[in-house]
């Protein structure tokens, strides 16, 4: 079953003198439980594509349907709610809220969802334990290593029980050991919760773990390959 259906997606940036087609007519579908890497050289349009897919950047034209809903037809307020309930984000620079502890960062999104306190606390503990840092629940991000922060970010992305997780260069700031551990962790989450993961990456180690690799160049998909893992 297709979770995400993308049709003729175009993004044109109007700079003062020239129009830049960052994404140039992408049509692609993603199914439930995919573990996909979107790859391509710098400036190929990966991040722009992911941003439009995640409801962060409005396309110039085309459709992004998630669970049958064209997200770009939603009002700004409904789109924020849609992101909260359906999409998890893992960013390159972790982007945890520095004044909140690891536990509070994970709990934050459930608080926004209006989940009861007991449920929030239980799920936060469970998620942090499953990403291997249950003992750092009360630590603030500044006290955690890059790898630990990215684990918290993954737990945060999973906290709202989203349909899929978008990860933009999640391993770019991590050393080799932390990258391997993080990829193992995300693969395990993918298996355990059947959550769809879509990465934008340059990292060969991520590509090696991916079940599907979509290659973008000049805003277009030039290759779409599936692998058995």
């Amino acid at each position, binding site marked *: 079953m297709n979770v995400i259906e993308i049709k003729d997606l175009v993004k044109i940036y109007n700079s003062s003198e020239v129009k830049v087609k960052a994404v140039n007519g992408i049509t692609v579908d993603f199914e439930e439980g995919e573990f996909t890497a979107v790859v391509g050289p710098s400036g190929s349009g990966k991040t722009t594509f992911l941003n439009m897919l995640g409801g962060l950047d409005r396309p110039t034209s085309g459709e992004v349907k998630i669970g049958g809903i064209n997200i770009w037809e939603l009002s700004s307020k409904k789109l924020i709610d849609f992101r909260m309930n359906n999409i998890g984000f893992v960013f390159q620079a972790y982007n945890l809220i*520095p*004044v*909140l502890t690891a536990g509070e960062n994970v709990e934050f999104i459930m608080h926004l969802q209006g989940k009861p306190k007991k449920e929030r606390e239980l799920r936060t503990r469970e998620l942090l334990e499953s990403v291997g840092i249950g003992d750092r629940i009360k630590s603030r991000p500044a006290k955690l290593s890059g790898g630990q922060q990215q684990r918290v970010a993954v737990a945060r992305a999973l906290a709202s029980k989203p349909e899929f997780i978008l990860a933009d260069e999640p391993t770019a700031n991590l050393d080799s050991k932390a990258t391997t551990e993080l990829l193992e962790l995300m693969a395990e989450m993918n298996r355990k919760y059947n959550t769809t993961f879509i990465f934008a990456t340059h990292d060969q180690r991520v590509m090696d773990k991916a079940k599907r690799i979509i290659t973008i160049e000049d805003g277009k998909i030039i290759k779409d390959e599936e692998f058995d893992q």
Partner: protein
Amino acid sequence: MKNIILAWRNLWRKPWRTIITGGSVFFGVLFTAFMTSMQYGSYDAMIDNIVKFYTGYMQIFTEDYHENKTINNTFELTDSIMSIIHEEPEITSYAPRLEYFALASSADITKGSIIIGVDPQMENDITSLSKWVKKGAYLVEGDDGILVAKDLATYLKIDVGDSLVLYGQGFHGVMAAGLYRVKGILSFPSPELNKQFIYMDIKTCQSFFSADNRISSLVMMVPDHYHLPKAMKHLKKEIKSPYMVMSWDELQPELVSMIEADNAGGVFMKAILYMIITFGIFGTILMMIAERKREMGVMVAIGMQRAKLGVILFFETLFMGLLGALAGLLASIPITYYFYKNPFPLTGEAAKTFIDMGIEPYMYFSMHPQVFYIQALTVFIITIVIALFPIYKAFTLELTKALRA
């Protein structure tokens, strides 16, 4: 509640910056409260001086007397007026006066003078008239002696124990004439008053002008000018034509103009201080927004509504302003209280000016609540206005730009 906790924690991310910004608000509020207290204290002293010197806080007279101050426009104090005054709890004391013009002659010198008939005790309760008696003695009830202002006495070459002939026109054109013994010499701070005032007991005065039971005005007091509006509202409503009531500021518009002119200077100074506070807070907010743009982007990206983000930023701004303002207020209360109890003594020309105005040469301070709450209210309003900026930023945040910041 979570939003408020988050705002509070955000405030202490960079403690020194918050302390410096709060410090600018603290010193701004402290200084404006101190300055306002000094201003209000000096105005209170001026007003107190003028009302206790002569006008009282309020006066009742006839509309005709207000237009034309002749003996024929005086009135008899009725029970209905007295009951209105007794019903008003703010009025602490009152005194009747009969005031008119007459010629004063001693031997071969004659001079026009203002004759004021007063109830010695009631008048003394309001104006402390007895303190201006520099020679001789003060009046007693039913006294047939008079008190003469010093320059008038010098001009007429009279002293305590001498006699003075007064003559003029009484009620309804009756001839007024009498011989009075000088019981005391008055020395007022104002040279104008020293040249023309003669005081006598009101019964003696009524008899002199053949105006039995008539008065020209009834002077009334309230505890201070902050209590005046309520009393005036009541009296203006109850005192009906042909009588009228006026307050000290209506009777002394030149003093009001002087206070207003001085206050305008104070307002300008305070406006500069508040501008410094405003830019201090605003600068910090601008820095805070620039530094946390990406974090704000992340919050909206993962599902926080922009309005909620605006609320967090609003509380951060509010906390910063109010913390400084509260600390400034708390510090200003004991400092101004010290000077309220121990006013600065003035020296030199400033002291001389005060003495000439009949005010003791001290810089007075006020502890009126307005001195303090106005500062808190002003900072609160400034903070609310500044807080609109981060709310605007939350609503106009471009997610992709913010996430790249």
